[in-house]
Structures are given as structure tokens and as C-alpha cells.
């Protein structure tokens, strides 16, 4: 039997090492606990009016064990982007936004290709969160609001480390109603550059983007 121990150990090591290092994670966008739908009118109590979201896109960065960043562009318009391979090894290093090293690394492709309209051309940097929509309460032209939240340099960084206390969770929920309830769309309807307003909104984003219990 003793002679068999190394064999069992090898077998155990083989099984352990053949376990997948990734699980399929999903992102759910919620409005009062239910799945949110793009281009549909919702009532926002804090605004005392209806609101409609046409564009909701954002970046997630996941670091490999060797600290290599992997970027995912999440786009509500493209449901297939609402899932991504989540490392079971290193979940705690999930970042909302594109990491600062990538922001200074020049032209790249795939999800961080500037062709996706998530890169500011007039000032280097990715738009980490883009929300565009309408509300009659919004004082902007055509009652449209545009929140382009970006910036990666202190003191106005909008990069937010995602807290994942439950490391087994592979579902993340963005509580959009609670997030928008804390943004005054009547007056803060146009944020399109890095700065203090963008940094404040990124903190709200982090607060209402959570790993499901």
C-alpha cells in the first residue's frame, strides 16, 4: 500500500491541476431587483420622473496570476458581453475600468481597441463607464444625458477595485436604479472628461456593483 502512495499523490496532483482555472461569470443589470431593459422607460423616484437608458457600456480588468491584465468590454446592447471568464485563482483583483498600465501602453486591439468608442481621442484615456439616456427632468438639449466616466490619474482616478468577499460567486450585479438615484441627472447631465465629478460617480459605480451573495 505504501508503494501506492506516490501513485495516489500523482493522481491527485493530476486531478487538481486539471481543474479549470476559470468559471463563466455573468453580469446582471438590475432595476429594483429585476433585469433591466435598454430603451425602456423606468420611473426614478429621486428624479420624480421617468428615465430611459440607451447606452450602457463599461470595462472590467482582471489580472492573471502573473499580473497580466485581461480586459472585458461589457455592453448592454450585446448580451454575449455580459459573461466573461473569471479566474478562480485571483478573483480579488478585479477592477472596474481599464488599468493604468494599459492606459499608457499605446494602440491595442480586441476589447480595448479605440474603435469601440470607449477611448478619448483628445486626451489619452479610456472611458471606463459610459451611460447615455433621456429623462424629461434632464435640462440638457433633447433631455439627453451623457455620463462618460474616465480618468486614471490621481487625484481624479475613476478606477475602482471590486470587492469580492464571496470568492465563489460568479454573478455580479449592477444595481442601476440605486446608482442613478444618487446621480442628479437634472443638473449633472453631461460629464465627458476626467475630474472630480467623474471620480465621485466612479465611487457610486463601485458601491452599486457587487458580487451576488
Amino acid at each position: 500500500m505504501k508503494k501506492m502512495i506516490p501513485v495516489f499523490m500523482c493522481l491527485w496532483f493530476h486531478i487538481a491541476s486539471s481543474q479549470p482555472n476559470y468559471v463563466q461569470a455573468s453580469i446582471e443589470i438590475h432595476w429594483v431587483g429585476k433585469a433591466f431593459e435598454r430603451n425602456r422607460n423606468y420611473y426614478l423616484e429621486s428624479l420624480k420622473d421617468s428615465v430611459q437608458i440607451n447606452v450602457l457600456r463599461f470595462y472590467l480588468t482582471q489580472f492573471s496570476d502573473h499580473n497580466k491584465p485581461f480586459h472585458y468590454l461589457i455592453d448592454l446592447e450585446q448580451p454575449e458581453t455580459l459573461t466573461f471568464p473569471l479566474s478562480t485563482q485571483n478573483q480579488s483583483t478585479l477592477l472596474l475600468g481599464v488599468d493604468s498600465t494599459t492606459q499608457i501602453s499605446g494602440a491595442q486591439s480586441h476589447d480595448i481597441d479605440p474603435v469601440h468608442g470607449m477611448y478619448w481621442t483628445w486626451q489619452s484615456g479610456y472611458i471606463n463607464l459610459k451611460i447615455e439616456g433621456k429623462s424629461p427632468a434632464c435640462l440638457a438639449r433633447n433631455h439627453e444625458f451623457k455620463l462618460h466616466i474616465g480618468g486614471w490619474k490621481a487625484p481624479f482616478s475613476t478606477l475602482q477595485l471590486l470587492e469580492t468577499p464571496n470568492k465563489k460567486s460568479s454573478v455580479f450585479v449592477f444595481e442601476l436604479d440605486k446608482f442613478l438615484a444618487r446621480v442628479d441627472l437634472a443638473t449633472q447631465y453631461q460629464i465627458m472628461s476626467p475630474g472630480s465629478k467623474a471620480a465621485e460617480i466612479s465611487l457610486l459605480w463601485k458601491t452599486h456593483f457587487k458580487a451576488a451573495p
Partner: protein
Amino acid sequence: MKTILLGLSVCCLAFVGQKNNWFTQPVHFPKPIYIVGKNPLSKEKIVLGRALFFDPILSKDNSISCASCHSPYQAFAHTDHDLSHGIYDQIGQRNAPALFNLAWQTSFMWDGAINHLDMQALAPITHAKEMGETLPNLLLKLNKSSLYKKLAYQAYQDSTISSERLLKALAQFQLTLVSAQSKYDEVKMGKAVFNEQELKGYLLFQKNCNSCHTEPLFSSYEFANNGLTTDSTLNDTGRYAVSLNRLDSLKFKIPSLRNLSFTHPYMHDGRFKKLHQVLNHYSQGLNHSKTLDIRLQKGISLSPADKADLIAFLLTLNDKHFVFNPENQFPKEILKGNEGISN
């Protein structure tokens, strides 16, 4: 084993050869900032980048190319124009800067808004007052063009032009724009000597100018307020608009002093047409605003003779080998007048 060693040797030789052939590191220059290894230069990619640089296909109405405001005969600046031009005869906000020695720069544009050479081209391509184009539409035009499909295939063994390929090819051509063959450079390499007046000017330069316009690039590429009054028609706050730090108000990137004979007018708004106007500004015309650079607080005392000597030295920074290098000119063998057309 011999085969492996031989293979490694060939790889190493190829790398060294490629580096020497397509990107010149002058011996008296510091280490470049741009990491060439992340965008390895090749003849075919530079050819693609050069064609793109000179082709107005990059603009919305196929009328404006990079070279429209960055002419090779003017050290890739826009002589005689104070502010840049764009589509539909629009005028921009700033003087088009000269383009050379870009591999040694940490940021781009007068306010340093762009942090990587690869991404710089996106700014003029998409600016409404410059080329006014969108990236998706530009890629559509390029991928319909038989010329660019061919050039892309030669460069990447694949005829598709992606934004990464577009931007990296443009960066490759611009990386080859190295200006390091002026009389000053020859003096530094022991191949020439300054005359008496140039030498006096060099000593004045070292005493009064070198801390900002640092040798051998002739810029520290820092941001500084050099005491210009604000042009009320532009109200340009410079670096402040990018950093949102009040201490950066009215600071602009310090430009290189190489090739000054070709790059007038001077300053971010092109307000000075002649070098003597620039020197008069530093000796008599400084505006003492809150963020004026500490090195200019007492002004620069220059006699008329000093100014003449200083200008004599500055003219030794002209690099005719660079300005008239046929490799940097319009690629007539490629574009043949079909530029701007999706052929």
C-alpha cells in the same frame, strides 16, 4: 545544438539589423522613451505609415493629410501659419508643432494631452476642426482601398487594416523622423567645430537656455509658463486643461530648438515670426503671472551682440539632412496622386 545556436544567431542578427536599419539611435542621444520592441519596425510597416501620413484619406472629406500641417520641408511643422488648418478651411487653436525625435518624448501636443505616440494620430483624425473623421469610417475607407489592402498585406501578411495596425504604422513612420545631423551634432561627434560667434552663442545658450531646452534634444519636454501674455481670442490655459491643477495654468510643453529656420512661427499660438522676436520676449517682454517659470523670474539679460551670437548658435541646430531626406518626403511612387481616393 549547432542548429539551435545558428538559429539564435540569425534571430539576434536580424533584430540588430532591423534596429539599425529602421530606427536610428544617435550615439549622443539618451535612451528613447518609446519601446520599439513593442512595435518592431519593418520597411513595409514604415511604407504603410508613410503613405497614411501623406494621404488625405485620413480626413472626412479627403482634403487634409497629416502632412498638410506637418510638411517635411518644414521639419514637419507648418511654416507661416500661426494656427493649424483643418477641413472646410477651419482654423484650429494652436500652432502645429514640428515632428522629429518623437521617440524621446513622454507626451504629445502642446498640453501633453496624449500619452503615447501610437495614440497621437487619433486626436487630429477625429478633431472637428482638423480632419473631422471617425475611426470606424476611416477603417471602412482604408479597407475598401486596394492600395491599402496591398500595403497592409505587405506589412502584416494580412490585408485588413485594424485601428491598431493603422496607429502603429503611423507611429513607425514618425519614429523614423530622427533629426541628429545638424552642425551641432557634427561638433559633438568631433566632425566639425563651431566658429567664434557660434561658440559665444553656445556658451550663452548653456548659461541661459539649456535648463529648459536641454541638450542634445534641446528640450526637457517639461511643461512651463514662459511668460507669454494670454491671447484673449484663444484663452488657452495649456496644461491646466489636462491636469486640472491650477499650478499648471498657462504651461505648455517646451519645444525643441532644433530646425528653427524651418519651423517658424514660434510658440504654441505662433505669435512670433522671427527668432529675434523670441529673444526680445525673453529679455524684455516677460509677463510675470502666477505660474511664470522660476527660471524666468529675473528675465534673461541679453545685449544686442549676445542675441546675434545666440542666433548664430541656434542656426547650427538646423538639420538639412533631415529636412531634405527623400525618405521623409511625399511617397509619390506609392500614392501617385490617387491620395484620398478609395481606389
